[in-house]
């Protein structure tokens, strides 16, 4: 597991409580993670990050650039397109959206911690 301070997981989630909780838990597990409240700031963060995260946990319903829009822009950027995206949403269409957006997976809210960690484990550490 890389410990050079670069975020391995980017959490894009507009609800602060959910975002902070996930960051908190990942931190407890020793996974460096960053959180962004919407798609626009997430894109800015990714573009400026010298080391790209291994996984993006993406909410769908967000103000401004929403999940789908973010994914579209991310895939257009060759430097970002390769980063796996797993949807994390309370939306009823999460399953179908995951297919449409060519996401790498999806988690439905409320999500169990074990499931969340499994996903992070799978994508979050390329060495694993």
């Amino acid at each position, binding site marked *: 597991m890389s410990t050079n301070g670069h975020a391995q997981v980017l959490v894009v989630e507009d*609800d602060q*409580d*959910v975002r902070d*909780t*996930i960051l*908190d*838990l990942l931190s*407890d597990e020793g996974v460096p993670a960053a959180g962004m409240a919407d798609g626009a700031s997430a894109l800015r963060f990714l573009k400026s990050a010298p080391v790209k995260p291994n996984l993006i946990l993406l909410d769908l319903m967000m103000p401004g650039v929403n999940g789908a829009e973010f994914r579209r822009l991310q895939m257009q950027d060759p430097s970002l397109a390769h980063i796996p995206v797993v949807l994390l949403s*309370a*939306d*009823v*269409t999460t*399953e*179908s959206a995951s297919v449409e957006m060519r996401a790498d997976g999806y988690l439905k*809210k*409320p*999500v*169990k*911690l*074990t499931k*969340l960690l499994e996903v992070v484990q799978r994508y979050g550490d390329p060495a694993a």
Partner: protein
Amino acid sequence: MSPRRATSAAALEALQLRLAEAEQTLGAIRAGEVDSLVVEGPGGLRVYTLEGAANSYRVMFEAISEGAATLTEEGLILYCNERLARMVDRPLQKVMGASVRELVAEKARPDLDALLRSALETDSRAELPMLDANGQEVPAYLSVSCVHDEGQRALCLIATDLREQKRSEAILAAEKLARSVLEQAAEAIIVCDDRGVVIRASGAAAELCGGNPLLRPFDEVFPLRVDGESVAAAALSGRVLRAVPATLPCPGAPPAEVLVSAAPLSGSSGGAIGCVITLVDVTQARRAEAALRESEARFRALADNISQLAWMANAEGGLFWFNRRWFEYTQSSPEEAQGWGWIRWLHPDHQERVASKARRCFQSGEAFEDTFPMRGKDGQHRWFLARALPIQGEPGEGSGKVTRWFGTNTDITMQREAEEALRQAVTLRDQFLSVAAHELRTPITALSLQLEGLERMLQKQANGDERMLKKTQSAIRQVDRLGLLVEGLLNVTRIVSGQFELQLEQFDLAEVVKETLDRMSDLAARAGCELRMEPASSAVGTWDRSRLEQVVTNLVTNAIKYGAGSPIDISVERVDGAAELRVRDRGIGIPLPDQQRIFERFERAAPASHYGGLGLGLYISREIALAHGGSIQVQSEPGQGATFRVRLPLAARPWRRGAA
């Protein structure tokens, strides 16, 4: 005198002598002075002895009322009596010496020959028509016997005149016919003599008076009066009555309504020798008419007092009758509305559609039903539900043929408004539930993750606080339940709004059931329920995994809820190209009347005051089963637990509510 003339004179004299001799002989025979006769024939002299030479026989021979004759074997009449000559209306002299064949109709002569032949053997009889001098046939009965006398054979003929008998027979037949007419006639037919006494009466007449009317005065038996006069007296005085209505008092019963006809019977002298009276009982018909009038009046009263607009149409669909309410609502006149005029009171957008539908129904005879707005007297339109049923003809003539239509238009404006309001309310509620569920999930996610993080932290701590871990785990369970409740609400709204799509994949249902049961084992254990999964054969099919997990969860949750403290049996089996999941509890059971209801939204058999829950689990389970092309059923008796069976085709045949 020349010798030739002398010879002729001698011959004439001889002939005259012989004629005189013959006449003398005949006279002697008739007078009974001769017993036997010698006749010179081709075979020489033959002696004929007259049977019964005694004078008394001769007298009897003449006196009997039958015709009698003696004949030669060949049928030559040797002697006959006056009666026989009268029968054939010929002079006696011309009969005697003639052949009997001349006295019989030509067509019957072969029969006569046969009769004579057979008489030589034995006494013979036959009914044969004789022939009188005018060629008229005389029906007669001929009886022929053979008499032998000193080697000579002769025939004795007795002819009975049947004319009288035939006449009597005809009279008897006519009488018999008259009697049977009287017996069979439905009308009371009474014949009276010139004093008005009943001398003949039909069976119906006896029935009408309730006794035997014969030989009683008509007025006493049938105390009827027409224009204040006795019927019999009127007829005897020459008056003719035709179907005059009258009331006949009947002792011990309501009076009968009758139609009286009467006519005098005229004798040969022209005066009335009696009369014939006919009574037709029309009481039943009158009562039926009265009943019909009453029923008609009742129908009018009913039709005019109902709140619906009522109408009737003829077989072709032209309206011809409307109730009072129709006119009150439309303010139309009967002339304006009749036929197809009523269509003008429908909203213009509906006129063509309703008219063509009505025409179709009127043609095919199928019941008509439609809803449309109708203009009232205030110019405003209100919605009506119109229904019309064909009325078929009475059995018999035109049986089964539609003779008219009866229809009603019911004002359903309020109902429609209420339904619309309800629909809107339901849509709003479903929208609210959807939004609420979505909004609730977010904080539940945070809470659930926090609690699980805490649990993980406590588990990692060496010498961790057991009590705190247990409390944390309890909190996690409650959050999980909260999550399930929210999930249920969201599922309902998805099902209702049609956003219910199956994610199909192939898997073993038994595996999914086992995994789900594992997850629920804690919950079950806490309720004192042992989850017993029967060693399952695998049931691999193509279904939506997470939906079926939900079904198992819902059914087992219910089993735990209503059957706490008892084991729960779960099995998965393959049955006829389908998989069957069975969940059996030993709980409170479900009464039969509730067994369908429990699968509906927000329905529950157990009282909410005793058992919590939103009443969605079975509804969602049923919808999931249906969406797979499967079914769900329950078998239960109160107090005996319940068994739920979910049947799923191995290859799901996705089905969407509302899909055609």
